[in-house]
């Protein structure tokens, strides 16, 4: 589980939401320059992990090192600087600003954080849009985009400032096969071309295995498997295998805990 030169390194991290303990003393490393897919059953808190890494949530204890910075301890200004310079995040719905068109959405971080003249910003925006194949859509409003297109625009926006790490929150969910193919190509392509570290949260086993260099399986708030897709499929333990093969019953049981079936049914008879 420890990788040489990880970009993100989590140690002893615990996080609870209300009474529920979501992460308990977790350790995990995410390798630099690689695509790592974070997978697990619904509700284990995969998205929460991304928010913790991005500093939107504070863990109860432990450290989260992102490129050498301990995120939970960063004061507000430094945290915002870190996000501005190094992080990009793609939300499940794209989260485009509905009051701006495609061009302005992608230009937003550039206009806000840099003093570049409009002509330069225009070039940069067009380059980013070209990379995701939507340069021609630059004047559309977010309401006019399909789900897949919106996500691609959001992707262009998240690479606008040339980050070092991009986090994808369920990038495949709800897309048709063609759009999914486009996103897959882009995630992989951008990772290579820009030397990014990519973390993607998904429960789509097939696509994740196809593009990820590493898989990180979470369940019950801890890492139950970390390795390349081949390693985990072949060697993984029962939990890992159930998840990767999509078996309906196994360590995660089919039946929600209930009383004895026979007595439950017969109780209604009398």
């Amino acid at each position: 589980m420890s990788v040489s030169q990880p970009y993100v390194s989590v140690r002893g991290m615990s996080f609870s939401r209300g009474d529920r303990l979501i992460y308990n003393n977790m350790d995990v490393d995410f390798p630099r320059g690689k695509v790592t897919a974070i997978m697990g059953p619904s509700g284990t808190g995969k998205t929460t992990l991304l928010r913790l890494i991005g500093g939107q949530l504070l863990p109860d204890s432990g450290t989260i090192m992102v490129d050498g910075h301990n995120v939970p301890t960063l004061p507000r200004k430094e945290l915002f600087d870190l996000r501005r310079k190094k992080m990009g995040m793609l939300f499940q719905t794209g989260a485009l600003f509905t009051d701006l068109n495609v061009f302005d959405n992608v230009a937003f971080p550039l206009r806000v954080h840099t003093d570049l003249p409009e002509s330069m910003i225009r070039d940069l925006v067009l380059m980013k849009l070209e990379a995701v194949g939507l340069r021609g859509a630059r004047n559309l409003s977010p309401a006019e985009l399909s789900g897949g297109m919106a996500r691609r625009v959001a992707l262009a926006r998240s690479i606008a400032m040339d980050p070092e790490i991009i986090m994808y929150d369920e990038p495949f969910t709800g897309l048709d096969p063609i759009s999914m193919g486009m996103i897959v190509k882009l995630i992989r392509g951008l990772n290579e071309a820009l030397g990014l570290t990519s973390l993607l949260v998904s429960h789509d086993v097939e696509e994740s295995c196809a593009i990820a260099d590493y898989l990180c399986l979470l369940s019950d708030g801890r890492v139950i498997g970390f390795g390349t897709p081949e390693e985990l499929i072949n060697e993984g333990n029962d939990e890992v295998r159930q998840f990767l093969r999509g078996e309906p019953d196994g360590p995660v049981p089919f039946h929600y805990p209930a009383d004895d079936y026979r007595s439950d049914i017969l109780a209604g008879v009398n």
Partner: protein
Amino acid sequence: MLGKLLDQLQAVGRSGTAAIEAIGRGTLLLKNSLFWGGPGSAGFYDLLKQIYSVGVRSLIIIVVAGFFVGMVLGLQGYNILIDFGSEAALGTMVSLTLLRELGPVVTALLFAGRAGSALTAEIGLMKATEQLSAMEMMGVDPFKRVITPRLWAGIISMPILALLFSTVGIWGGAFVAVDMLGIDDGAYWGNMQASVEFYEDVVKGIIKSVAFGVVVTWIAVYQGYDSVPTSEGIGKATTQTVVISSLAVLGLDFVLTAVMLGGV
């Protein structure tokens, strides 16, 4: 039975602490968004856009309401004063009622319903579609960018709207009094001028409406920001904005009126 009573008590206690927590979070929100500045924060044009959205677009309802309220005041006031032979005081009555009370209060209530609920829904929707989160992750403070201009737009718009309400109302009352009921034009305006004091009545009315502007906009913006990011959550938050800010305005009105009349 005792158990049920204890449960009820517990529920009351819990809602009490929830209310206190909400006030705490609301105060933090105010602290974070009252001042301008910071990366990506809103600019002057954003303020203008918000004043348009919140103030200019409330104009019609405020002006129409003000006119009707003024006319009703004229009618009712006439009915009451005629019994005392004091119908000449109608101008005074209409203008003082509007400037001191109805102008600021009714405007605030209408504003809460129209602009307040719109603000809550807008911010709630931005939260639900993760736009606020996306801003954060881009290193932009969503408070400064989204909330600050809306907050100040409300604070600026409210006194203007209240003043317009009162103005239109006074002329509405004049229309009823002079044109419909036949009261002497000079009596209506002359007595009014003699009794209405600029610093006492007009300015204090403005102070009230600024206070109401802060309260209503703050509540509206907070409810939107704190809403559960689902469609029911936003619906509930919008309703709460209208209810809570209306009650807050009425309560604050009592406090301010008592201070303004009791003290000096």
